[in-house]
């Protein structure tokens, strides 16, 4: 890993790979991930794509089979204690001691973290309306998630890593949680890496998106560039007989394509105008170009990868970041 990149990226992985003996295949396969300093990075992917495994390797909780990673300028596997001093970690569900009272747990964390800010934690607990006398195991899921976030922020970390933190939360609890995260980012300008299945949340919050699929990074791009550059083209073919030619067509920026009767739907990224011309040249009419949400893009990129449309496009997308 290049040392000159340490200033630009808060989190960086190079060829990060993890194989579990029982699985055989790599769960994370040569992952190159770059999280710019001060950004919110949305780490998305299907269940089992390798998000949590990647995050656990970043936290030094799992040792990579090959490749490496850095948090700031620190390798979490060589200097785990130093790396964890600068990172706040929120797992998918609170893993702290359920039998402890909130106040005891806060005291416990304070003893473990040299840079613990008790006053700030007290304020955050008050703002989140968390009773310090309550047992951790008795907290509602939303409150436990907020507590987990507060504990992760207690030592004022440079980097905040959230592993599906809003999973299973109701919409109100989720909004409250995300407000806390946004508040923390705005207050401190820290780097946030957040994996989530809620793509609407990621679209709202993330500056950069990384899409992992089957352990590989399919797409890594700035959110606004991704949303602005990825379009859905809906076209109607003149004749059903043209569908064979259309399905074989590979417009230069194709992500995914589907033909149903005379209806041809394509998702393209990059040169939309060029793609529209190519579609028109194949005898399509009523061509309509639509904006897409992150949710739509995610689905089409994954489908496109499965259909083999994406391979050449992937490198370009990664280069975009």
């Amino acid at each position, binding site marked *: 890993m290049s040392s000159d990149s340490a200033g630009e990226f808060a989190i960086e992985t190079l060829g990060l790979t993890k194989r579990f003996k029982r699985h055989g295949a790599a769960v994370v396969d040569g992952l190159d991930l770059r999280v710019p300093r001060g950004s919110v990075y949305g780490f998305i992917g299907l269940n089992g794509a390798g998000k949590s495994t990647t995050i*656990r390797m970043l*936290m*030094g*909780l*799992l*040792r990579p089979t090959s490749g490496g990673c850095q948090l700031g300028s620190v390798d979490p596997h060589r200097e*785990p*204690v*130093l790396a*964890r*001093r600068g990172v706040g*970690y929120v*797992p998918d569900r*609170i*893993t*702290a*001691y*359920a*039998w402890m009272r909130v106040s005891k747990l806060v*005291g*416990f*964390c304070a*003893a*473990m*973290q*040299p840079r613990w800010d008790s006053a700030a934690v007290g304020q955050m607990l008050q703002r989140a309306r968390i009773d310090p006398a309550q047992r951790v195991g008795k907290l509602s899921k939303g409150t436990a998630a907020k507590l987990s976030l507060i504990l992760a922020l207690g030592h004022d970390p440079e980097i905040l890593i959230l592993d599906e933190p809003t999973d299973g939360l109701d919409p109100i609890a989720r909004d409250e949680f995300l407000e806390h995260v946004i508040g923390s980012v705005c207050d401190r300008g820290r780097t946030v890496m957040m994996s989530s299945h809620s793509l609407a949340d990621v679209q709202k919050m993330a500056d950069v998106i990384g899409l992992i699929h089957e352990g590989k990074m399919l797409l890594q791009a700035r959110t606004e560039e991704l949303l602005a550059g990825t379009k859905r083209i809906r076209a109607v073919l003149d004749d059903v007989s043209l569908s064979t030619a259309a399905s074989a067509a590979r417009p230069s920026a194709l992500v995914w394509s589907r033909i149903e009767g005379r209806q041809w739907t394509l998702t393209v990224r990059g040169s939309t105008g060029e793609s529209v011309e190519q579609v028109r040249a194949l005898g399509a009419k009523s061509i309509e170009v639509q904006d897409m949400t992150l949710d739509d893009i995610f689905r089409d990129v994954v489908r496109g990868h499965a259909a083999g449309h994406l391979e050449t496009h992937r490198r370009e997308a990664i280069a975009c970041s």
Partner: protein
Amino acid sequence: MFMMLIRKDFHLQLPVLIASGLLFIAPTIIYLIIDAAISTPTTEQEPLILALSAMTMIGVLIASLTIPAFVGVAAARERRERSAEFLEAMPVRRLTIVTSRAVVALVCSLMPAIVGTFAMATLMWVESGISKGSESGTLFPNDAGQLFLVGFATVLAAAGVAWFVGSLIRSEVLAAALGIGVPIAVAMATSIAMSRMSDEVIYRLGIYRDGPEAYAFAQLAIAIPCLIAGTIIALRRTSP
């Protein structure tokens, strides 16, 4: 930091500590209940102390069965509950975490031994007073020291197996069960091996057929590798 970890580890051991305490006092309570029910209360202090000391010794032996549970809890419980992940995401060295667990398990395991030593001392003291002038001899065999060695080696083997298994799997119950089962199996295997060995082999090994040395050696041969391997795994584990 270390004291906070120690307090946390003691709290994790509380259920086993309570179970151990109950097992320890159970024989004494049962004895007192039976004594009160079937006979008139004795006015002689010495036989009562003797009986209570003996019951305490039995209590200690039963409570010793919880030693693998202490060790199993120390090694596996936090990983089963996933709180190990919480702890290891903090800037704490794994050596500190493992040392705290080991110290607490050791202290908890030593409790029956300390109580047992006091009970044994009391028993010996009272028994020596009673047997003065008597020709019935002492309750304690001459090779009590050797028996103590076997007992110590067996307890160490139980703790070692529980530590090793607990560092591999996330079930403290299974770790404790194997901690009890494996030393028993080792003792039985040693007994069978000793009975089948020819006198010549026994002589060459420099042991007695009915002596405790082979049993102690067999248990130590299990205990030491298990303790070392368990510690290495706990320190070098790739996931909490």
